[in-house]
């Protein structure tokens, strides 16, 4: 552990840290070890691919391509013309993988952001105010845990019409439960800390205390859930699309795999199955790696042992 880091921590422990020290420690931890750096690099690369998709694509992902002799290029293996081969309708798989990164990142980050914001707000309000507010909100969390997650998302999305927005909403409606429960426990212990009591005695209102003293302290935990949430949301979206209940107008890695599966092309077209799968794994592992180092930050006990 670097000296700066431990100084920062000592300072943090004494005063209840400001937003700036918190972010500083986070930055040092994120770039400390190799796996985290790899994780961040991979995520940044995928974001660049999503942003630059129009430039990177070699072909319109919906276009039905033909061979030189005029027949439709059905299930052509990788070649100079189609780097990752073609689908059963002669569509370019490389271009589909590139454009599929957009759906994955969009669902991943938006759903994770929504779940984290909802989960954290519920946790902070329940934990800080306690009493009947806490009881009520925690019963809602218990109830959210009783609903099977994937079936709920599938049915809700199909009832509301399949679209990316509805997938995001369906994920967010249930997934906030896990962050809410854990972060609330953290808030309960924070509430009794001396500096928060001091703030209360000094006349700070509840919302001021929540914003200035509670939230900066649960931020690392919230970011941990955000990082895990991105990975889960991406996997959930790909599952929903794989089950044929995704947005029919959007190319996602899950919907590509759905077609490879339902058309039976997977029996020989490995080039249709492997690229979307590897993309999902790469991106999700990257979010897990980042999540792991955020966890070290959120849980100081883990920092001592390496």
């Amino acid at each position, binding site marked *: 552990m670097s000296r700066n880091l431990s100084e920062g921590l000592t300072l943090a422990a004494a005063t209840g840290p400001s937003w700036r020290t918190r972010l500083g420690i986070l930055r040092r931890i994120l770039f400390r070890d190799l796996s985290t750096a790899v994780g961040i690099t991979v995520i940044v690369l995928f974001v660049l691919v999503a942003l630059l998709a129009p430039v990177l694509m070699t072909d319109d992902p919906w276009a039905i391509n033909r061979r030189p002799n005029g027949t439709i290029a059905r299930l052509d293996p990788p070649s100079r013309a189609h780097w990752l081969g073609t689908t059963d309708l002669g569509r370019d798989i490389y271009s589909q993988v590139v454009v599929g990164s957009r759906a994955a990142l969009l669902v991943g980050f938006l759903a994770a952001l929504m779940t984290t914001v909802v989960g954290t707000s519920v946790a902070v309000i329940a934990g800080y105010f306690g009493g009947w507010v806490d009881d009520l909100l925690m019963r809602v969390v218990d109830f959210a845990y009783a609903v099977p997650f994937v079936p709920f998302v599938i049915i809700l999305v199909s009832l509301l019409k399949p679209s990316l927005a509805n997938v995001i909403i369906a994920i967010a409606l249930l997934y906030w439960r896990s962050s809410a429960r854990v972060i609330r426990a953290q808030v309960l212990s924070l509430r009794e800390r001396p500096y928060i009591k001091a703030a209360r005695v000094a006349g700070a209102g509840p919302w001021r205390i929540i914003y200035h003293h509670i939230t900066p302290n649960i931020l690392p935990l919230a970011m941990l859930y955000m990082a895990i949430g991105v990975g889960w949301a991406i*996997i959930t979206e790909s599952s929903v699309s794989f089950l044929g*209940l995704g947005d029919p107008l959007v190319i996602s890695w899950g919907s590509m795999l759905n077609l490879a599966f339902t058309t039976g092309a*997977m029996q020989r077209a490995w080039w249709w199955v492997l690229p979307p799968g590897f993309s999902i794994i790469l991106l999700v592992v990257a979010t897990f790696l980042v999540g792991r180092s955020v966890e070290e930050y959120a849980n100081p006990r883990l920092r001592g042992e390496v």
Partner: protein
Amino acid sequence: MRVRYLLRRILQLALTMWLVATIVFLMFRLIPGDPTSTLVDPTFPASLRAEILHRFGLDRPLHEQYLTYLARAVRGDFGWSFYYNSPVVEIVGDMIINTLLLALATFFLTYLFGILGGVVLAWKHGTPVDSVGSLVPLVFRAAPVFWTGMLFLMVFSYRLDWFPHAGIRTAGYAATNLFQKYVSLDFLWHLLLPAVVSTLYYMGLPMLLVRNAMLENFGEEYVEFARARGMSEARVMFRHVLRNALLPVVTSAAVFLGLALGGQIVVEYTFSWPGLGREIVMATQRRDYPVAQAMFLLLAVGVGLMNLLADMVYGYLDPRVRLQ
């Protein structure tokens, strides 16, 4: 004390199921468009639709419908399937058994190999075996389980032709009784691929739990002492360290059963395993909503019961929980 706790938890479960049933009722009726289209096939002629709506009581006010719906759900009456053209109750029996068997097989394999793997990782702590071995479960966790399933199908079913690619028994296989239906080589042969694929997906959790719990025990004096007595390393690991590291694993196992039941949908679909999860997907795709609704409620009840079981096990192992 324990009986009262159990009774309270059962009451809580009943209350939760009532809430889930209510949400399901609202979900299927308050959606945009004509809500009855989810319950009676909209392609029927208008007069026929009206008659069916009347027969099922769907033309009555919402609160009346809600009460009949609850009364029926309690008795296990989930209505009429458009697709099978038979009462929903009649088609769920086998599916429940199939889902449970796959979940149990997964559970057994997950904890067998998860614990063994965890011991190996802890044993080889700090060597390449540990660092590579810790990464493998992470990768299988990040891989969507249907994709791993597709890979296994491509290799072991289509290319090598070792395993069947779908279903639960060979077409034309006739069992003389229920026992033979499930206790046969043919059934096991169909069960293996889906069970192994979901095991790979879930195995990481017990593996890392065992590894970390064992590492925490390594510094303890009893480990030094066991080694000093000249015990073989394997004996130290399995007889002493693993035993002390097992508590968090056992509690996670109980929670896992509920999780596996709800999360099995995708595996069942990939391997055409005729269980509750696959049926939810098929029913949703076919717009056979009475079936989808029934399967959803059944899964929720299953998950609820497993969580209840988890709490009981946890309370038994950790007495502090019981007193709250």
